[in-house]
Each structure stands twice: as C-alpha cells, then as structure tokens.
C-alpha cells in the first residue's frame, strides 16, 4: 500500500514538473510559417539539426537563446538534453561540415525581433515575454 502511494506521488510530481517546464516556454515562429502547432518530435528534430521542415512542409530555421532559465527549460522540456550535451551535438555537425551553428541571441526581445523579421525562423521565449509580430506555435 505504502509503495503504491509513494509511486503515485512520484508520478504526480514528475507530471507536475514536466507540465511546469513546458508551461514556462513559448515556441514562436515567423508569421509566414504555415503551421499553427508543432509536435515535440518535430521540434526536437529541428532544434538538433536533424530536420529543416515541419510536418506541414514549412521550412524552418531554429533560433536559440544563448543561456538562461528559459533556454534550460526549453532544452529540458523539448530536447531532453543538458546545454553542454546539446551544444556538443551541434559541434559534431559543425566540425564535420554537416551544418552551421544556429544563431544564438542574448534576450527574449532579440529572439522575438529576429523571428518576426526572418522567414522561416522559429524560436522560444519565456511565457511572460512580449511577442508581438510573431505567431505562437502550440506544442502537441
């Protein structure tokens, strides 16, 4: 009995933490991107350099935050890697001639500005950040 209560509590805690992590980040895209939602798998493929299109055929280019809580939460919720592991993955692509490093910007405002003005750009910002001029993609 005790064991099953403990397992239930742990599962509930894991669910709450996962939901919290996802809730703190908004995924945004240039208004020219057709899609209004994106799957977690597609998001991971795009942000790890394994894909350049979403399921609906929209061609996208990932934009990163350089560091910070929102960046860490995004990686934890959608990529499943620490920052060091994530950047190591990109370095293997860059130094083997397979890709260019995605643009990394300092602030949420800079990400919003860049995404708003560049076709196909897709990025992430904190939930509370202003985001005029971009569309918010629901993550399914």
């Amino acid at each position: 009995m005790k064991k099953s209560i403990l397992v239930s509590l742990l599962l509930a805690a894991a669910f709450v933490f996962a939901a919290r992590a996802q809730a703190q980040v908004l995924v945004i895209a240039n208004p020219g991107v057709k899609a209004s939602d994106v799957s977690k798998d597609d998001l991971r493929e795009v942000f790890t350099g394994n894909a350049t299109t979403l399921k609906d055929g929209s061609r996208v280019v990932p934009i990163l935050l350089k560091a910070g809580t929102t960046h860490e939460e995004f990686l934890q919720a959608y990529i499943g890697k620490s920052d060091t592991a994530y950047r190591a993955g990109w370095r293997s692509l860059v130094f083997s001639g397979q890709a260019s490093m995605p643009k990394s910007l300092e602030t949420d405002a800079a990400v919003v500005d860049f995404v708003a003005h560049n076709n196909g750009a897709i990025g992430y910002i904190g939930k509370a950040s202003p985001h005029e001029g971009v569309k918010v993609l629901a993550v399914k």
Partner: protein
Amino acid sequence: MKQFLMGVVMLALTVIPARAQSMEDLNIQIHGYATQGFLYTNQNNLFTTNSSDGSPAWSEAVVNVTAQPDSKLRVGVQARYFLLGNIGNAITLDWANADYKFNDKLGVRFGKVKMPSNLFNEVQDIDPSYMWALLPQSVYTLTNRNSALSQYGGLVYGTLKLGNNLGKVEYRGWGGEQVLGGDDGYWIGLREAGMNLPNGLSGSNIGATLHWKMPFKGLMIGGTDTRKPAWSSQLTFAPAPGVLLTGSMDVKSFNQWATFAVYEKNKIMLAGEYNKLAPGITLSFPHLPIPFPVDKRQWYGMASYKVTQKLSAGIYDSQQINHALPLGPARFSKDWVISGRYDFNQFLYAKAEQHFIDGTDNYFDENLNPNGIQPTTKLTVLKIGVSF
C-alpha cells in the same frame, strides 16, 4: 578529380560573396577548437610517443569558416593542426565542400567531404562532441585516423520517414578518391622496416551507410559498407645502407563493412559496433615477396551516464583480433576503459580516462620499444579542450 572538385568549391566560395547583398546575408561563421592531451603508460611506449615517461605530445587545433547565404546552400572549409608523437606536426585540409540540401529527403555535398562510414567515423576527430578521450581503438585507431576521415568526391544524404510507426531511415552514399598519405600513421610499421610509399596510397571508393531510427524511442541500428576497388602504389625498401629496392604495394578490391546500434534515453547511452577488415595486401619486390597479412575483426560495447549537467562517466570494452597472425599477444588487443568528462562551461572541458590493455596488435611501434613490447599496458589519458 581532386583539382577539379577543389576548383569548383573555391569558385563557389568566391561567387557566393559576390552575389550576397551584405555580409549579414552570407551568415558567415568561424568556429574552432583546440585540445591538449597527456599520455602515461606503466610500460611500453604507444602512439609513437614516449608515454612511459609521460608525454604531452598530443595536440590538435581546428578552425573552420562557413557561409550559408540561404537555408539550402552552405559552403565551408576547415583546417587542422595535428601532432601525435612522431606523426603529423602539420596543418592539413580537413574538409572543403559545398552542400545543397533540397529538402530533408535529399541533399548533396561535394569537394573534400567527410566519409560517414561506421558509427563515429564522421566525428571521430571532433573531440568536443563526445565524452571519451580516446574512442574505441579497435575501430577508430588514433594513429590511422587522418586518412580515414575524408575523400575527394561527393555525398548524397537524406532522411526517409517509413510511415505506419516504423520510424525513419537516414541514408548516406558517397563516392570519390581516398588518399592515404605516405607519412600517415597507417605506415608506421612499414617505415620502421625501411619501407616507404613516396606517393602515398590512393584509389577510388564508394560506400553507403544506413541509420534506422526505430519506433522504439531512442534506439538506432545501422550498417555501413565501403567498396574499395584495387589500389596500387610505388613502394621503396632500403634493407641495408646504400641499397634501395623499388616495388609496389597492391591492394586487391575488398569490402569493409560494419554494423552498429545505439540506444539513448535520458541520461543513458549504450552503443556497440562490429567491424570486419580483410584487405588482400601484397608488398612486391623483385625476388622478394613480403607477406602483409590482415584479417581483422574489431568490436566494442560502451555505456555512458550523465551524472550531472556537467559531469559524464562511462565505460567501454574494445577488442580486435587479427586472424592472419599466429597465436600470441601480437594477434589481439583488448582494452577495458573507464572514462569521465567534466564541462566547466559551454567552451571549456576536461577528460580523464584509464585503459587496461591486453595484447599488442594496436597502439605500439617497435622503434620506441627497443627492448620489446610487453603483453599488457596500463594507460592513463588526461585531456583538456576548448571550443568556440
């Protein structure tokens, strides 16, 4: 072909800037990394270093420049400085290529391109990208590495979704000319026996690699096969002072294949690979045929765990056996390894690794072990790296 391909790449490098409206349009990036290693062995000198005294003679530095004027086209070039004991100490062209990606299903790359054979060949020289100080030496031998990395030619690549929850397949196919330089680590044994390949050894090769990312999340299985038609090159032999024989090294056409699997979930990574290498090599001099027997099976299994955001730890067992050699320590090499990596920040990291090596089919040259090679060796590797 080599000159033609490099000419086309250089043309692209000059035409693209001319067409761009601004430097910002070119999305020019410069990246690099540098590493410094330290090797210490309890006995036997390895990798052409004086490792039994402790050797820092393992340095690398890489810098690349890429331009990506639009999301489909990318042009770049990468140079490398490499020093390992008596090997290298020179700057070489790592890759220089133009890449056009039509969509996720089809892309093409040509110029000097990396060969994506095996599980790690494409990234085996990119130290910042993995946790190990040394990749499993049975398959990714450090002294033989540089000539195995790239070729002059082309590559097609893409990802195909299989549908109906069957996962997806990443494919790569390549063809071109591979060049094994005369001063490459491949030929340490030959050089110490008084033989040289003044023009190196080169020839055409084609290959393909498939990675099946299975519906069972985190699991990838794959295979690679490379076909090398017959290669031949001039070989010289100085058996005594003032005597120089000229002959040839001939390699019969052969296939080199490997199969591998990787499982990654959360903080855990498991991987394994099995490789077969059996080229028919003949060293021919008038009235002096010299056998060069190679019939190798090479494999490893590895596991790593992300202990914290900054600390990773892992183990692997790497083994190889050369069936063409007589029984004894020179016929095999077995290497048990424990390893750790610490990332101080996004740019700076350190690695520490302990190897327990049994057998002498890898790592060792005769000149630096004049009293003979002992059958077992303990190797400690420390490494620090910085990348930007």
